[in-house]
């Protein structure tokens, strides 16, 4: 039993010494991820993209004020580049990337509406990125809603003003109806009908009073919306992406380390010695797991400390949950890395597989795209990646202050244990064959 531990310890010392002997590598491993996160934070300000917008109208004077009001209201997303009268000129500016959006206002919108038809605004862009196109469509929709709202508000205000004389007439009518009812002899068959008319007129008057007393903005836009996260914290772009970036970096480090480990030894020829020496595949694998886990736990600690203390990334949950999530992520990623190492013939092949896995993780782990948007069969691939679990677990712990979800933990642990068994069998076959 003592020899078992001595043999395992051989890898612990060897792997750590080899890595710590390369100060540049350590520096890259610790500072590299931190710098990437910092740059990421600097690169993406916490605001939406502003769109340089050019309006086109045959009657610019008519719409000047409305356009100005609109761009003022949405100054964070729209920069007014003025009103053009020439549509082709505006579109050529769009093609030259001198403007981001061209909105064509129809020639006679009010006449069109009066003819019981929708007046259509045309919005042109020069984007190819589906996400940016989606963003522009949202902005255009907001713009049209805003125009409709303003139009309705103007109409409402006009209606409220016009209803003043109507109400006066209504009050006179109520008074006359009252007088008529009182003048009618008792038992007159029409008394009841007159009372009903009086009631109707009174109700109408009350509604009219309410219509006139409410602000036009409330009448047109009776419901507002206020969204709040239950954590009570408004996250920056960096803050939101920090858990995912940490997960991707740790997964990639683990996979790359492990992927190069066994394949390098197979190439060097020392595997031949392992095969005839009194060391088993399990001892070899366990020794390697422990050494890399030890190293990467330290690296994860340093990266987390830098992120929290220098980039001010919050961890709302408790440290134990964070540590548990990171540990299981590292364990599973190492399993994947050793698997790559065992199926690769060369270092280059191992690096290529690792890079492919990184790419797959970026696209399918929910790093950029929400998993709920994925088609069902692809989610199987997504949920076979350690990063998918890691990102969710760290987001829960760091951003929501929640504990590690048992389902997520069990899922990733199962994958990790699965890879441990498969790696052991593959290494055993390599050492026995």
């Amino acid at each position: 039993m003592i020899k078992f531990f001595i043999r395992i310890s051989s890898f612990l010392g060897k792997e750590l010494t080899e890595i710590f002997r390369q100060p540049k590598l350590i520096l890259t491993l610790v500072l590299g991820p931190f710098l990437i996160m910092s740059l990421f934070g600097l690169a993406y300000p916490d605001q939406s993209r502003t769109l340089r917008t050019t309006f086109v109208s045959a009657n610019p004077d008519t719409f000047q004020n409305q356009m100005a009001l609109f761009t003022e209201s949405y100054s964070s997303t729209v920069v007014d580049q003025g009103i053009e009268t020439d549509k082709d000129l505006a579109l050529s500016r769009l093609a030259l990337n001198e403007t981001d959006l061209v909105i064509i206002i129809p020639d006679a919108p009010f006449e069109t509406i009066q003819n019981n038809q929708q007046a259509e605004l045309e919005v042109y862009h020069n984007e190819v990125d589906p996400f940016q196109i989606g963003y522009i469509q949202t902005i255009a929709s907001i713009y049209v809603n805003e125009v409709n709202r303003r139009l309705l508000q103007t109409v409402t205000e006009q209606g409220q003003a016009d209803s003043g004389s109507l109400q006066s007439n209504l009050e006179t009518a109520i008074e006359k109806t009252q007088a008529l009812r009182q003048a009618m002899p008792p038992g007159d068959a029409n008394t009841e009908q007159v009372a009903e008319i009086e009631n109707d007129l009174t109700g109408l008057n009350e509604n009219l009073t309410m219509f006139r007393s409410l602000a036009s903005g409330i009448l047109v836009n009776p419901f507002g919306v206020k969204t709040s996260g239950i954590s009570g914290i408004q996250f920056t772009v960096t803050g939101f992406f920090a858990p995912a970036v940490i997960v991707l970096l740790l997964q990639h480090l683990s996979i790359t380390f492990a992927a190069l480990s066994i394949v390098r030894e197979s190439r060097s020829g020392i595997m031949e010695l392992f095969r005839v020496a009194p060391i088993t595949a399990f001892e070899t694998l366990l020794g390697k797991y422990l050494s890399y886990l030890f190293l990467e736990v330290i690296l994860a600690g340093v990266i987390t400390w830098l992120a929290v203390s220098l980039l001010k990334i919050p961890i709302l949950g408790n440290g134990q949950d964070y540590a548990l999530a990171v540990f299981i992520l590292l364990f599973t990623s190492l399993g994947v890395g050793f698997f790559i190492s065992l199926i690769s013939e060369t270092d280059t092949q191992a690096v290529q597989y690792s890079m492919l896995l990184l790419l797959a993780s970026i696209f399918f782990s929910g790093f950029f795209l929400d998993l709920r948007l994925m088609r069902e069969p692809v989610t199987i691939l997504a949920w076979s990646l350690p990063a998918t679990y890691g990102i969710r677990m760290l987001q829960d712990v760091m951003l929501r202050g929640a504990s590690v979800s048992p389902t997520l933990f069990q899922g990733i642990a199962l994958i990790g244990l699965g890879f441990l068994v498969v790696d052991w069998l593959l290494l055993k076959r390599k050492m026995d064959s």
Partner: protein
Amino acid sequence: MKNDKTAENVVETQDLTKSFGTDVAVQSLSMYVPRGKIFGFIGPSGCGKTTTVRMLTGYYRPTSGTLSVLGKDPAAFSKSDQGKIGYLIQQFVLYPDLTVWENLNFAASFYGVTPFRRGRLNKLLDFVELSEHRNKLARDLSGGMKRRLSLAATMVHNPELLFLDEPTAGIDPILRRKFWDYFKKLQEQGHTLFVTTQYVGEAAYCDLVGVMYEGRLLMIATPEGLRKKAYGGDVVGIKTTEGMSFEQRHQLAALPFVHGKVKVIDAQENDVIVDEASAAIPTLMEWCQAQKLNVETIEEKSPPFDDVFVKIIEMEAAHD
């Protein structure tokens, strides 16, 4: 071709064959390696030496035949059995980014040597004369130093039986000689050594030599026995002041204890093959006197092992 079987053999093989697809790397190899000896396994590159070592260490399973190393089939080795074997691989397989000491320490842990091993490791470094370089990175060592470090790592768990695959390949003759001094010392300490080499001349340092060629073991003998077998007896060189006539050479070859033809080295010098040099030399002296030949020198010759090897190969070709 096989040597004699004794009770104290640490390696025994019978008709050992290893094929890779249709290529036969080792064919019907039968041999015995006695305990405490240096067994030299000699042959050109690609003749099957490493394949044989790999079968003996358990790295390869033989295609057919039987083998026993330390009394067991290597395929059935326990950890304890594996711990009795040291294996020096042909190329340097230790870690270039570790120091000499760290590599040795790794090897020691790897073989499960107790943590209280500093003294033993120091002795090993002294043995291979690397103590002064203990803190040097392996990648900064010369080729010879790397081989010595590998040898020390092979010895770290004090194995009974050492398989050294081409330990002297690619290093200078002086260092090669030094390696054989190490091997002799290891033998004196009670280790059995199975050493492969393509340097035929190194056969002289071995107790027993096996000659491999194209996957076949052509011969096993002591170095002297090898010469004898190669030439059909001892070689005796006769140098006379006068040249030997054709008739005299013919008569010399006809002597009952002389085998084959007389080999003419030059006008004065001729070589003959005899059963036993010590017995033949006085008779040859008498024959020279009877022939009125003035003998300058008459002595037993030790042909270089390169020649011995070539001779053995020629015999094998003739046999085929």
